[in-house]
């Protein structure tokens, strides 16, 4: 079973993302964290390989996404786990900062269910497909 960590404070966003993930023809479970502190604690504390992927929002309470990225860079367990930023901001500044903090990918939050499906498919197809075993396969 593959598990994805989702760092997102907005329950609606979580719903859109998990919905898109559920629509994948794969068995993927989602652990979510609702603020930066919680995320750092959970992600750094997790055993290596717990999460195949981390989806991270930038605008989250307590410690923002950039802060989370910086902290993860220091932790050994999550160092090789891809961190994909999924942010509502399209500002080039934010994108720049996210890259500098070491994210593996940056997606602006889509504004339609289709958009979400496409985004998740892209992410999964790019970063996870080697790891996944499709139920049908």
């Amino acid at each position, binding site marked *: 079973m593959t598990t994805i960590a989702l760092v997102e404070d*907005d329950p*609606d*966003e979580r719903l*859109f993302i998990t*919905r898109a993930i559920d629509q994948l023809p794969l068995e993927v479970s989602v652990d979510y964290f609702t603020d930066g502190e919680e995320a750092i604690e959970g992600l750094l504390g997790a055993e290596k390989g717990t999460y195949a992927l981390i989806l991270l929002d930038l605008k989250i309470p307590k410690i923002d996404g950039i802060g989370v990225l910086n902290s993860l860079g220091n932790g050994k367990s999550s160092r090789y786990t891809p961190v994909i930023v999924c942010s*509502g*901001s399209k*500002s080039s500044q934010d994108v720049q900062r996210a890259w500098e903090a070491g994210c593996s990918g940056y997606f602006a*939050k*889509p*504004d*339609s*269910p*289709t958009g*979400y499906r496409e985004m998740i498919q892209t992410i999964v197809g790019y970063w996870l497909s080697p790891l996944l075993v499709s139920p049908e396969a």
Partner: protein
Amino acid sequence: MRIVVQTLSGCSLVTLREISVVLASTYTGMNEHPTKENQAPELIVCLGASAGGLEALEAFFKQLPDDLDCAFVVVQHLSPDFKSLMGEILTRCTSLPIVTLKDGGTLQRNCVHLIPPTKEIRFEGLTARLGERPSKGVPPMIIDHCFQSLASEFGQKAVAIVLSGTGSDGSRGVASIAEADGLVIVQDPLDAKFDGMPRSAINTGAVHLILTPGEMPGIVNRFRHDPDSGRQPLPPLGLSENLSDIQRIQRALKNNFGVDFGRYYKEGTINRRIDRRVKITHKTDLATYRHLVESNKDELEALYKDLLIGVTSFFRDPEAFEQLEKLVFPRFLDDTNRESIRIWIPGCASGEEVYSILILLLEFLRDNEASIPVKIFATDLHRDSLDLASTAIYTNEALHAVRPELISLYFRKVPGGFQVSHKLREMVVFARHNLIEDAPFTRMDLVVCRNLLIYFNQEAQTRVLGLFGYSLVQNGHVFLGTSESIPEKNKNFAQIDGSARIFRKVREIDFVTSFRAVDPGSPKPGAAVQHNPIIRSKNPSERILDSLLGCFVPSGFLVNRENQLVYTVGNVSRFLRLSPGRMTDDFLQMVPEKLRLHFTGAIRRSFSEQKAIDYGIITLDESVENGKTERFHLRALPVEDYSHNLQHTFLSLTRPQEETPAQESQTRAPSLELPELAARRIEELENELALSREGHQTVVEELESSNEELQSTNEELIASNEELQSTNEELQSVNEELYTVNAEFDSKNRELSILSSDLENFLQSTQIGTIFLDSSYNIRRFTEAAGHAMHLRDGDEGRPILHVTSPLGLNANDLLTILKLVEDSGQPEEREIEGPNGACFLLRVLPFSESTSESPGFVLTFVDVSPVKESERERERLAANLQNLIESVDGILLTLGKDGEVTKPSQSWQSYTGQLWHDYKKHGWLDKIENAPRPEDIFTPDVISRRRFQHQFSLWSDETKSFRHCLARFSALPADEGWAGLIVDLENETETRRILEQKQAVLDEVTDQTSTCIFLKDLDGTYMSLNRFARELMNITKEQVDAGISDFDLFPENEAQKIREDDLKIIESKERAHFEETVGVPGGKVRIFSTTKIPLIDQNGNAYGLAGVSTDVTGHRESERIKAQKSELERVNAELEDKNEQLDTFATVASHDLKQPLRIITNYSDILLEEEASKFDSQTVIYMQRISDAARRLNNLLESIFEYSRSSRESLKRSEIDTNAILDEVLEAHHTSIKEGKVQVIAESLHPLTADRNMFYQILLNLVGNSLKFRSTTHPTLHVYSRQLEGGRIVFGVSDNGIGIADKHFPRVFEPFERLHSREDYEGSGIGLSVAKTVAVRHGGDIKIASRQGEGTTVEFALQPGTDWETQHPPS
């Protein structure tokens, strides 16, 4: 004033009026005032003092009037080893002369007599006899000695005063004084520094008054004066009558209230309180008060209340309460199964303490989160108090010790104060209870009994403590008042906290023991041991008791431990036999031999087993009465009396048929038929026992004797202890002497330190640098000023002065020379020495005068004389100047005396007239004047009063050898010393005038050349002069000015009026002033002038006009105004920029944050539309579609706002950009529209440009987008091009053949969010052109539009500085 008259009974307190009676009775009683010729003092006042007495003496003498006509003798314990300063100290407090008595000296009235140390005094009439004090081994009793002599010599004229001190000196003496009817006054022990002597004296009962020292002189005076005092005796000193009165009062109290005060309460306390009532009711003595009490219930009640009610308050002694909370309360929590906490508070009075304890406990429980029910039993004898306590209303003042939060928690506001809350009140049970006589409450965890025991006597205290012990559970606590305690010998309690008086019960206490301990019916414990148990006689009541006993108690014997028969009940004679021989009270010897065994056994068992023994049936044959065999049931019943350590056994003999079946089942004795052998054996054993008893007796006697030995040893110890005590007293007296000496030193020391600080301050304040040297020229001390001058520092004391490198012009050798000189001559030396920076010091070296100092030395003083020096120099300079001045004067200076005589030689006179000094001195000078007037004609009274004169005459000139016309002007010298004056040769004046005119011309020329207005006006405002600049400005001629012209001719009336007013002010005040005048000048212009006007003052101090200087400052003012406007504009600009920035930030944040929820709305509506659409009907789907569309539009709008705000906010990043590549990107972005609309695109090759790449892209994207959006329906074209203007600037253009824009809309198209079309027709937010405009403007360029409706639009923009070009449609 507190006055206590204490009689021997120690219980009588009387009013002030009576005191005077008392005082008078001790007064000798002269009827007429003593004549002044008789110098004998009226009273001999003797003051005895010891340790701490100095202060008391000071206080006494400070209040002492100096006309008391008494002699004062001060007897103080003084150390023989020190010089006494007593005399000096007392001098400061009184104006009376102070003499130290000599042997044989006479006591003087109004005089204070001191006794030398080591002496003791006695009197022979008014003659003092001084004897050596007894040798050291004996404590000095000099005060006693003095008082005793005083009493015997002066009797009623003697006044003895005992002041502070330890020990008991004086106590024996006051008794003598009192016996001799003298007056005895004692310092209040509370006031005295050491209360030993005052207390000791008071304890003798011979003291009349207890006062503070300050009050004593007044009383002595009163005692002396009261004329009809005399013959009344002192109040009776007898004991019996008063005591019986008190006893009767106590009986009345007992009868009415059931409380036996006489028995249990401290006698002193009771007597004091009764005395108080006597005083309050204005009764003269106890007997009358006793009558009142016996006849008046109210007074009895009042007395009862007084006796019972103590002082109480909330949280009295907070520290004790803290300890209670810390040490006792936690114990309540030890037992987790505890059901309740029970507290007994006897003597609760008005309840403050009860509630204090309860609140404290509840707070404690609350803090520890424990909920244990609390029950408090609060008892008191006094019913009214209990009522108060249970009503529980207290005033604000009473609650001041309670923390406010506790008040709000446990009290509620009611009229008159605060009432304890119901919750609290319900936990307390109030009951009337006599602590001594009523049964105690039981199973208490804590007994709080504060400040009650102190009123009880020893007996009652012991009893009450026993009760508490019984009342408490094991390990329960007693909380007593601060001055109460449980004696250490009471092993039932252990002390937990000494200062808070908390005790813990550590041993179980038997109620019977404790309760009977002081049973009123039983004799006192001590007496009981001696009591003979055999009843020798009976009184009638005892006989009745006996017969009752016979009726209700079975027949029997009461036997004690020694087998003595103590008592018999019923007819038991048949059991008794009298054996022949010596009479014995041994019971066993009285009974028949056959029964003896049974009785012995029964008695022994009952004693050993301490319980009732049912011995069984015994038979008595050969009964005395009827000779028949009778059977009796024998039982032994131990009867104990613990308090007396007595044990008895009651042997009851009843007939078997009287017994109840239940009793039969009790223990049966074994069969009584003993074999003969056993009987013999028993007899043997008994004999053996008797033998061992004798042995025992011997041992006891031996112990007794050794006990006696111990007793005698003990007595020896006591004796030696007494010896030690006397040694101690001796030590104490030495100590006192030391203390006295110390006090004197202390006081001297204070004076010294004051003196020293005075001196210090004086030295500092003089600002004269002073250095003290010792004989070896070492610095002993120096002042701050000297330190400053000589560069000395704090640590330099002790250094040789010659080692000091001084900044002054004084080297060590010079100084040494001076010092040696002074040393040899003993005379002061002075030197002037130079300091740094031209300062000058006067150094004065003085030797220490030998009379005031022990060690020789020097005083060096430095006085900074620089200012003096400076003024000297100044004076010389002035004198020289004056001389120069005099010499340069063109005239004759002459000084005349009062009568016109020449007093000083005058060089100028001599050279003008050729007269020599001896010729012109006195009145000789007049010889050279033609027709000289007489002096008295010159110095007329008028001239003298005006102090000046002016005179013209002809004076002989030696030069021209002729008389020349001269003018003399003289002024009076100060202090009528004469006259000084100047004589001027008037014939030289014509020349002077010519020079003046020349100067005037030059001045006029100068004023005319300046470009400033200069003018003079007379008092009427008419111009006396106007310089050329002013004339030209005013457009007038010099002739016009000379003809007379004023401001009213030059300026409009109101302006002229204003100028005139200003002028008048200046003339009036005679002070210069500055104005800024705004005036209209010819030519219609308004000019601003900055004008300074100066009044013109003549020799007599009168103003005769004014002068003015005006500068035209119009231009200056104008530029200032513009500058101010500019800076204001700059400020507004900065403000605007600031606001703009804020707005931008807001737009960014707003658009970003608004987008988030919007996106969610879009998402949800899309989910509904795309994935759940089948669940809704078609109409709903349309509506949802609309929501979705609206949300998307809002999203676009926000996007646009964001973009707009970014375009004006983001910093420009200029770079060389490939404009063609960007155009390709733009076309690619719009390729769908281009394709759909079949638009023909003409893309020219564009010029390269240096600009912000993103922004250029943005502009182009928007412009192309607009052209595509508003394209023509037929053959739409899009033309993108660039062209180079003259000067090299590049203009980019986008042109189309679309719908175009009407001219009237041109002004609005660049406004943000301005839309010219409805949303149904053309989508868009109306932001595109605004963004383009902003970007262009930010680059310094501009954007221009040309359009014709229906034909198309051309937009051109430039991203380089410059906005001047023409745009046409279609582009050329």
